[in-house]
């Protein structure tokens, strides 16, 4: 049985060229970038090249990229780093109810330490209302953290509008772009973004590496202390092979962006069309318009998440109930709660499909057929 992986929002396979880049670094250029001899200098060069690539990919400058161990660390560094560095200016933070747990749990931690956090609601479309943000904004607000594109339902937030709104306010604007990066074209200067988190393993790069863009001049208290790597903003020997792989992944993602957007948007429509043709009852969580091309989240009334996932897995289809990080135990998705309320059926019968490298039109056909069959069986039609 051919297995069909439709869970690219959880993690992606490394691109063969990325594996090659990582292997080459591990075998040949294994030096410590802080060493002053040629092994060290060669490794430093690899890190510098990747830093330029990363900077260029979002319209940032070389010195504005901090490599981290991944998206979680980037989010933690952004939020805690600002909260600590700006505590003289205020203790109020604004975020949304649908952020990734790396943002939400960090904010909750800061609340325990005396910060005040406003969690903005979203509509059924998954978007926050600018008016709500304007209203929540105070003189002592130091940080606004709003994700670029949601990992569970794919909804895009009005990032440029938020950037515009905050342009003349002391509050620093952070966006978690872990799901959007590589899929949306991002320009941090045009959108007035101060901090932006990226994870490599979501774009066919290696796990254990990511970056935080931090605009020049933004004061950030580091979280990891030690050597003076990353201009003292993130201690620890640089993960050179992973950084080399990340560099390749960014290049590949950037060069195929338009092509992928079109392909995955097509997959999304194809999947929906098949289900409609088979007269399956389902609801789209979020909208098709304001959404990441590779994520689609569907609610199937009359089914339940667990039997859906088990049956899909048996049929060789890997999908998810929500984010992988909350999936370990099936708890109701905080994103769907925010969109539809805690009593909605959608909390118990929604499945996320996410597309990526290696998926084909044929696979989507097969998956659509299989989903239709399973839903029909579970709802006794």
């Amino acid at each position, binding site marked *: 049985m051919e297995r069909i992986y439709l869970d690219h929002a*959880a993690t992606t396979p490394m691109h063969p060229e990325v594996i090659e880049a990582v292997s080459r670094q591990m075998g040949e250029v294994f030096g410590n970038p802080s*060493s002053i001899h040629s092994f060290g200098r060669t490794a430093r060069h690899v890190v510098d090249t990747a830093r330029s690539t990363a900077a260029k990919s979002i319209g940032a400058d070389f010195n504005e990229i901090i490599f981290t161990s991944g998206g979680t660390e980037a989010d933690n560094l952004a939020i805690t780093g600002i909260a600590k560095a700006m505590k003289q200016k205020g203790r109020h933070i604004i975020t949304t109810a649908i952020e990734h747990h790396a943002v939400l749990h960090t904010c909750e931690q800061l609340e325990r330490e005396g910060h005040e956090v406003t969690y903005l609601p979203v509509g059924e479309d998954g978007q926050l209302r600018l008016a709500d943000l304007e209203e929540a904004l105070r003189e002592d607000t130091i940080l606004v953290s709003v994700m670029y594109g949601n990992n569970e339902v794919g909804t895009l937030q009005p990032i440029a509008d938020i950037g515009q709104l905050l342009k003349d306010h002391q509050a620093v604007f952070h966006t978690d772009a872990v799901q959007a990066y590589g899929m949306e074209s991002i320009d941090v200067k045009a959108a007035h973004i101060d901090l932006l988190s990226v994870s490599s393993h979501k774009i066919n790069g290696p796990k254990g590496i990511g970056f935080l863009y931090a605009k020049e001049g933004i004061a950030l208290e580091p979280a990891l202390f030690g*050597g003076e790597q990353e201009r003292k903003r993130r201690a620890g020997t640089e993960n050179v092979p992973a950084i080399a792989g990340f560099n390749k992944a960014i290049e590949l993602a950037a060069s195929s962006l338009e092509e992928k957007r079109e392909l995955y948007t097509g997959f999304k429509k194809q999947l929906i069309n098949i289900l409609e043709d088979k007269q399956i009852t389902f609801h789209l969580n979020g909208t098709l318009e304001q959404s990441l091309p590779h994520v689609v989240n569907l609610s199937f009334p009359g089914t339940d998440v667990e039997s859906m996932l088990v049956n899909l897995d048996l049929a060789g289809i890997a999908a998810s109930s929500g984010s992988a*990080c909350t999936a370990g135990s099936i708890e109701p998705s905080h994103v769907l709660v925010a969109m539809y309320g805690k009593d909605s059926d959608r909390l118990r019968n929604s499945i996320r499909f996410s597309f990526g490298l290696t998926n084909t039109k044929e696979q989507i056909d097969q998956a659509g057929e299989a989903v239709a069959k399973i839903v029909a069986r579970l709802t006794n039609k």
Partner: protein
Amino acid sequence: MIYFDNSATTKPYKEALSTYVKVNEQFFGNPSSLHHLGLQAERLLFESRKQMASLLGTEAENIIFTSGGTEANNLAIKGTALANMHRGRHIITQQTEHPSVINACQQLEEHGFRVSYLPVDSHGQVSAEDVAAALTNETILVSIMHVNNETGAIQPIQEIAKLLKNEPQVLFHVDDVQGRGKVPLNLENIDLCTLSAHKFHGLKGNGVLYKKKGVKLSALLSGGNQESGFRSGTENAGGVAAMAKALRLIEEHRREHGERLRAVQQFLRKELEGRQDVIIHTPREGCAPHILNFSVERLKGEVLVHALEERGCYLSTTSACSSRQKKTSTVLTAMGVPKEIADSSVRLSLSYENTRQEAEAFIQILKDTIPTLAKVQR
């Protein structure tokens, strides 16, 4: 090419590389995913954790995977400080610790903690008596490294552990980044212990914090609650599997080639001792078998490192993390080495793959190199 800079970083074992590639090609799933691929990745992570634990003589539940030694040291120190501050705000460490320990402690000082930085003797060793004398009712943590990264000096870990056995309220953390695979360390009376994969031929970006059951720790990274809530972030299953493989291999190499490594070090020491212009900083007794730190009088360490590199020998000045800053080594300073001599120091660090022939060739190159530089410097 003679690579004598294994304390900065090591070349990954071929087997570790192939494990990493295999995992990422075949089991790339997110361990938290519920489907087949997720379960495979989770099982692999579990097996790696078990293997790691058994190599360390402990249980799988005591292993926290991190992004490396720096994160593990930060988590150990700040994590215990935050979780135990209601019991006291005093920490004991010593002056020659790695910057990831010293700077983490300094950060805690800014947040109201008191830290005692114990002195070391001329061999770079801290005394257990000093640790005992520094203990107060407020002490919550003692953090002492096993093997010093610049000199190879071994700290009296078991003596301190024995002492702290009578102080159940004081946690004991050991930074074993440089010792692991080179100098055996029993974790029995240690509460927290740091390892870094790329120092034992694993991959960069992977480390372990050993945490004894029951030890209270606050997480530094919040998020998806991976690693039992102590370290959020998608697990790097490939890196972790490669790390477990590398640790198994280096332990084998230690048993098989441990004597040889020590003999290469002894040979180098004897040859260097024979020179009037060389001062050796690595203690004769109580040192790891792979590090030799020495000064060639009146030659800047940096100048010697570059000159040796031109002749195919790779060494470093101080630790890699501080070598780009061109500061006088705080480790040698703490040992009482005068500034001028400390600025001349270079560190030579071996792996089990280095041979007597390489050591002989190195000595010859050093002999040929020094006179050419001595001329330049005058």
